[in-house]
């Protein structure tokens, strides 16, 4: 088991944002968390990557308990988090953004190799290499955020709403690349409001509703569930 979450409880002040959720991600999988706005999807990812402290429960990654580990340490263990809203470093150039993605890597040639790898998936970034992150279009920023998340050679990458605000063509493109990343051996935990897209590339999925997991299963089962169809797929 690559990632195992057990009975996780997170509070924002008095608000009980995650109410004892449990799930897991196995090596090589794409797992989706789907759910409406405010269901706790982003909160889950933030708790995993150490940006917020859970009140109780446990998170184990590669067999090690990381529930209260600092974010820096979790990155070094091989979990990369591409946050919601892309969070590009706007005053830094594309190249500098990518270098920050590889912050934990000290080997220069390794960084160059990863940069080339990212450019192969996102040739557009190469054209914009010396441009400031803040001047990129939404789609380009998403490419940069995803590329930056790949720079530290993660074993597990957490993607938060990679399709948000993108044109349909861009969405197709991003999802094609997510599949490609997965095919190269990186496991993916995907949070999406675009449930249809997410389920189409996932192996398994969990449905999150107001801080609780209400449904779990293979992506196919979830996609065929009548309630999911009605609530998230708009069919």
């Amino acid at each position, binding site marked *: 088991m690559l990632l195992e979450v057990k009975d996780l409880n997170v509070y924002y002040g008095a608000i009980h944002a995650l109410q004892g959720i449990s799930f897991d991600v196995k090596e090589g999988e794409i797992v989706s968390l789907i759910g409406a706005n405010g269901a706790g999807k982003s909160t889950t990812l933030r708790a995993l*990557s*150490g*940006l917020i402290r859970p009140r109780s429960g446990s998170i184990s990654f590669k067999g090690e308990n990381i529930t209260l580990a*600092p*974010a*820096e340490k979790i*990155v*070094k263990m091989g979990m*990369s*988090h591409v*946050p919601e809203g892309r*969070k590009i*470093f*706007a*005053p*830094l150039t594309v190249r*500098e953004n990518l*270098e*920050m*993605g590889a*912050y*934990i890597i000290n080997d220069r040639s390794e960084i160059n190799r990863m940069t080339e790898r990212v450019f192969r998936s996102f040739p557009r970034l190469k054209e914009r290499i010396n441009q400031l992150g803040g001047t990129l279009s939404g789609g380009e920023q998403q490419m940069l955020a995803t590329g*930056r998340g790949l720079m*530290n050679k993660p074993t597990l990458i957490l993607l938060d709403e990679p399709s948000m605000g993108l044109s349909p063509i861009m969405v197709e493109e991003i999802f094609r690349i997510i599949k490609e990343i997965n095919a190269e051996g990186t496991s993916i935990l995907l949070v999406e409001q675009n449930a249809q897209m997410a389920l189409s590339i996932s192996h398994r999925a969990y449905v999150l509703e107001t801080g609780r997991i209400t449904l779990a299963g293979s992506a196919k089962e979830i996609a065929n569930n009548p309630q999911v169809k009605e609530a998230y797929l708009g069919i």
Partner: protein
Amino acid sequence: MQTISQKQKSIHIVTPNSFLAWIGKFLLILIALFALFVLAKNLIAKPTLFAQNVLDGLKLGFVYALIALGYTMVYGIVKLINFAHGDVFMVGAFVSFFAVEFLGLHVWPIAVFPDINPLLANVLGTITIILLSMVICVLLAITIERVAYKPLRDAPRIAALITAIGVSFFLEYFGLLEFVFSARFIPYKRPFEEMTWYIKDGIHQVEAGVTTPPGSITFSNIFVVIVIATVLAQLFLQYLVRRTKIGIAMRATSFDKPTARLMGINVDQVISFTFGIGAAFAALGGVLFAIAYPSIKTLMGVYPGLKAFVAAVLGGIGSIPGAFVGALIMGQAEILTSAYVSTPMRDAIAFSILIIVLLIRPTGIFGEPEKEKA
């Protein structure tokens, strides 16, 4: 787009409109024209004296630049005006005083290599003194950050600001104690002898007891040292921030701390590092200031600290080139005011600049409007 238009609207409301603003601007233009007139008159009447004043203003401005860099960098990364910064500058001057007066650290090159070139010996000795001041000030600043500011990192900004004022008072009044630095003026022994030259039909060395011919411009080796040290420091800082991994991490951290952590950046270390760099520059400034104006006292950091703060605001707080340019302007404003208006007016002018900047362009010369984050 929506947020931008909302912001513009809110700015529109705060701007005091029409008549008052118009009068204010008119008065400012009048003052500016008057100042230009006075300067131009003196430039034409006595060009060499004017050049001399500009040179003296540069000397002061360069030292302010070293202090202002610390304000602007720390503000850039933790959004805190570190009011204790001027006192770190003072500690830098005192460390060098003790090193020269009691340890005689500046003469080690001659002691170790008796037949060393005297210029090289002076350079090495002075660098040693500066490095020692830097190390002590870096340790002091990092300790201050860890003890006083770090626990307040998530508190409202005003809490950290008040704490900074408290730390400043603590350093000042602790230093004023009789067994620490005392309240007296202390004559400062320079690590090297002052040498002066005058420019008139070429460059000549000023002999002791001989007055320089009228219409000449004088400058000293101290001026040269200050210019070289400050320019090197500025270049080093630009290189650090633009080209090195820790420098890029500083900019990333300054922009967005949570995302910086997601990259694996240890934000606490980056913040300590920033305080350390600022303190090292303040120490350099403190030593150079004491060498240039060789009489030190515990409260010597208060005014240079505040003026460097004004310089940082004038240049656009958070901007490194801004701090440099702002400091040069402040140095000129102060020296030219002393020369052509009156000496007591120079502090008034310095702080009027702060008020004018805050009224007309709060973001300073190089500053960008601060983005609001949720």
